[in-house]
Each structure stands twice: as C-alpha cells, then as structure tokens.
C-alpha cells in the first residue's frame, strides 16, 4: 500500500501527471534498474528496459487497484518487461549472451545450460553464471538470492504458485552448482556488501 503522504501524488499521477509519477517511483528506481540489470545481464539494456517498464507502469497506473503493495506491482511490471525483453533478444539473436557465449557453432540445439559450450572467461564467477540460466530460473534466483525476497513476494511478483517458486529456486541453484563444478569457480573474495 502507498503511504497517505503519497495519496496526492497518486491522484495526480492517475490523471496523467508524469512529474507526480516520477516522484512516486524515485525510491524504486535503483532497485528496479538493478533487478532488470540482473535479468538482462547488460547495464545499457537495463537502462532502456527499466525506463520502458516505468513508462508502462505509468500508462497502466489506472489499473493499479492498491490490492497489492505499490512496489510489488511495480516490480512485477519490471520483471515481466525484462523477461519479455530477453526473450525478444533471444529470438532476434541466437547468440543471446554474446559476452559469455563465444563458440556458438559447437552447440547443438540443447536447451539445458550445462550442455551449452560456454567460454570459460565468460563465466568468471557465480554472478555471471546466473546470467546463463534460463529465464524461469534466473528470475527466481535474482529475486530470492540477490534481492533477498521471500517466497511469497516472489510468488506475488512473478504470479507463480509458491510450490513452483520453491522448485524453480531449487533447480536453479542445482544448475548453478553444476556450472560451478564445470568451470571450477572459486569463491569471490569476502568483504563485498550490498549497497
């Protein structure tokens, strides 16, 4: 729910006041940008896609019925926009993660990530390994392990049942473990905190 302080801004934003909406979302900008960045794997794309998500939210602000938290509603739009974007990008370019996958010729149409031939330089750490996951696993891993959301929040944002969230999380982590083993990823040095 949105605090009463914001109710004036909400009214204005619903009437199509872009500046009011901009003030409403200001505190969510960095979070949305980072979630989108982690799903798309590219900062430049994340800039465009997160802005697109905000504009989408603004245009559909009338449909926000306040039954869920404003942030949940906003993140749902951001996550869906980001997933739509990477699916589109995949369709347009089969070498989707050009930063990581270099030798596409050797790969033979397998969907499982572990079978893909991935350059070792690409997957330097676990974070880059997350980028190699399929969308369905990546989304829950990003939201749970990187953003620290609980299962319920993830379920609300993705629209998936709790059970599915749990199983995808488990399978996603399993895939990460396989990648760690395959690329012999060393733990990152300690001392890095979340901003």
């Amino acid at each position, binding site marked *: 729910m949105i605090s009463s302080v914001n109710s004036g801004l909400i009214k204005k934003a619903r*009437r*199509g*006041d*872009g*500046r009011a*909406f*901009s003030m409403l979302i*200001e505190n969510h*900008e*960095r979070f949305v*940008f*980072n979630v989108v*960045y*982690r799903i798309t794997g590219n*900062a430049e794309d*994340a*800039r465009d896609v997160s*802005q697109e998500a*905000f*504009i989408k939210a*603004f*245009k559909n602000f009338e449909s926000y019925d306040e039954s869920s938290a404003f942030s949940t509603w906003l993140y749902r739009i951001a996550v869906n926009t980001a997933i739509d974007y990477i699916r589109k990008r995949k369709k347009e370019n089969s070498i989707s993660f050009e930063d990581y996958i270099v030798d596409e010729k050797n790969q033979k149409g397998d969907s499982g990530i572990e079978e893909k031939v991935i350059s070792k330089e690409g997957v330097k*750490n*676990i*974070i880059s390994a*997350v980028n190699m996951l399929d969308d369905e696993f990546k989304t829950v*891993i990003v939201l*749970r*392990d*990187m953003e*620290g959301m*609980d*299962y319920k929040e993830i379920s609300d944002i993705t629209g998936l049942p709790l059970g599915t969230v*749990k199983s995808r*999380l*488990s399978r996603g*982590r399993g895939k*990460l*473990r396989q990648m*760690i083993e395959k690329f012999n990823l060393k*733990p*990152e040095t300690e001392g*890095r*905190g*979340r*901003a």
Partner: protein
Amino acid sequence: MKCDEALNIIDMYVDECVDAYDEKEFLKHIETCESCRNAYNEIKRITSELNNAEYLPLPDDFHNELTEKLIKSGKKRNRSRIVKYSAIAACAVLVFMTGAYMKNLYYMASNESYTESADAASANESMSNDMLRSANGASPKLFADGASADVYEGAEAGGTGESTANSYNDTMLSTAEQNITRKIIKTGYISINVNSFDETSQLVKTYMEQNNGYVERSDQYADYDSQTNAYKGKSGNITVRIESTKFSDTMSYIETLGTVTNQSVTVNDITNNYVDAQSRLEVKEQEKERLTELLDSAENIGDIISIESRLTEVISDIESYQAQLNSYDDVVDYSSINISITEKNDESIIPAKTDFVDKAAYNFKNSARTLFSGFEGIVLLVIKLWAPLAVVLVVAVATVVFIKTKKNKK
C-alpha cells in the same frame, strides 16, 4: 532423515523456511552424510555470494531522463483522453439526435392529422428556426441592393434552409455590381401556430399601427376536426402591408409570435416593366404636347375634332400608364405579408409575448423537452429493436467475460 529428504529441504533450510523438527533432523543428517553436507555448503556459498553482489549505481541522469519521458507520455495520454471523451460526447449527441428523430418518425406515423410541413418544422424545431433567421439575416442586404431576377425563398424545412441561404448569397454578389435603382416587389408568406388567435392578431395590428403599416385583409374561421368534429380552435389569415424597408423586421417580429411551420419570401423584380411603362408614358406625354400645339394652330373644325379625339385617347393612355406606375410604386414601396395563423393547444408554442424573460424561459423549457424527447426516442427505439439489441447485448457480455477470463489467466 535420508539423503533424498535432506536434499529436498536444503534450499528451504538455507532460506530459513523449515520448522524446528526438520531443522534438527537435517542438521543431524549432514553431520554424518558428507555428500549432503557438501551440497549444503555449496548452496550456502552460492546464496551468500549472490546476496553480496553489489548494486550498480543508477546511470547518470537516469532520473531526469525518465522524468522527461514520463511527462511526455503523460501529455500524450491527456491528449488521447481528450480525444476519447470528445468521441464519447459526439456519440452521445448522435444517440440523442437519433432518438429525437426516431421519436418524430413515431409521432408522424401515429398522428395523421399532423401536416407535413408542420412535421418537418417540428422535427428540427430549433434548427429550422435558426435557419430561417439566418435566411432572414441575408434578405435585408439583398433587398437594399436590389435583385435582378425572381428569387424564391422556400424555408419549409430546416434541411433546405441552408441551400436557400446560399443561393441568396450568389444573387447578392451578382446584383451588387449593378447600380440601377431597381423596382422590387417583396411578398412574404408565413404560417404560425399560436396559443391564442385573437391575442396574436391584436399584436399584429398594434405592430402595424406603430410602424406605418396596415392590415389589408383579414379573415378568421373556426377549426373542427374532420373525424370527431371536435372544436380545435380558431384559424385565419391576415394580409398586412408594410414599408418595404421594414419588411425583414416585420417578418422577424411575426416569427416571434408563435411556432413557424412554413415561411417563404417571394421577390419579384419589375424594373423592366416599370422602365417600359415609364418610357411609354414619356412618349405619350410628348404626343400630348404635340397634339396640344397642333390643336392650338388648327383652323379647320374637322382637324380640331380629330385632334381632340386623338388627344383624349392619349390622355387616357397617360392616365392608364400613370396608374400602372402608381400601383407599381405602391407594391414596391409597401410589401405584403400574408400571415396564416392557426390556434393550437400545444405547450410547445412560443407564447405570444416577446420580452426576454419569456423567451429565455421558453428556450429553457424547450431545451429540456428536446432532451426528454431524446430519451423518449431512445426508449421507443430500444422497444422497437429489442430482439436484435438483446443479441448484441449477449454477444457483448460474452466478449467482455471472455476477455476478462483471458486477462486473469495471463
């Protein structure tokens, strides 16, 4: 706890979502089972490493750029809203007009005694009045300039009013170039429905007295319904003569006395006839002069008699031409207006009073009546078309439900 079960709850344990019993059992298991312990440690490591991932700062100018984009798309949205609301308003007006039109069709079919011209006038009451007024607005200019040919203004129905007004403008243009004093006869015909015949005819008479006009002829009779023989009211005709310069004002005044059901103005240019009569008169005058001179110098009685008899003919011709010119002057200087007055017990008739408050009250009532008539028309239309409307409604509801369920599934 077996390995299967332990592996199943590793993730939940890492996420701190297991109950106390499972937790205890799980910890007991990994103490002894190395592979499960390794799995747990690996997942623990993954999650903590991911959890420590750094947040990227927002790109430079992200907020300002986004705000600008939002403001722009907001403006667009407002504009599209205006378009949307305008469209809705236009549709509503269309629906009302259709309703009013349907109501009149219905009324026409159900009331045979209603005359055609009255129908046409009432179908678009306010509209046709406006048209008439605009046509009248054009006419004074025309009369001042003089017309070159017969012009007939038929403003029986609102629909034709506009085209008539246009043809007026054309005539005005062509005549404006000519600077001859033209002789034009204007005759007006106007039919009005009023509440009280006596009151209206008295108002007409008073107006004529005040404006140097006069009532040339008037008659009145009682109206009975042809089928029921019931008394319907008094009707009559009044022909008035008014200075041609006051023609338009008088027509406008008469319009305000009741509901105009029919109105027309005939303009007849008699310049040629007039000039013709004038020149014949001149010729005869000259002949008269010559004959008078001859008479003076005549010596022979036979000549005198024949000259006098010719002179008598010429003088008679002169008088006849003079009379013709006088009558021309009379009809040119004084226009005729034939007023046909019908008494109707109908509230929609403008009361025969002309002060502002009454007019305003009338227009207010009339507007409300039009709106109501629109509603009535819609209701009648809905009743008339209930079967196809029901089908449309069912299809529409089905579509909405379909779209909603589809959206929900998404």
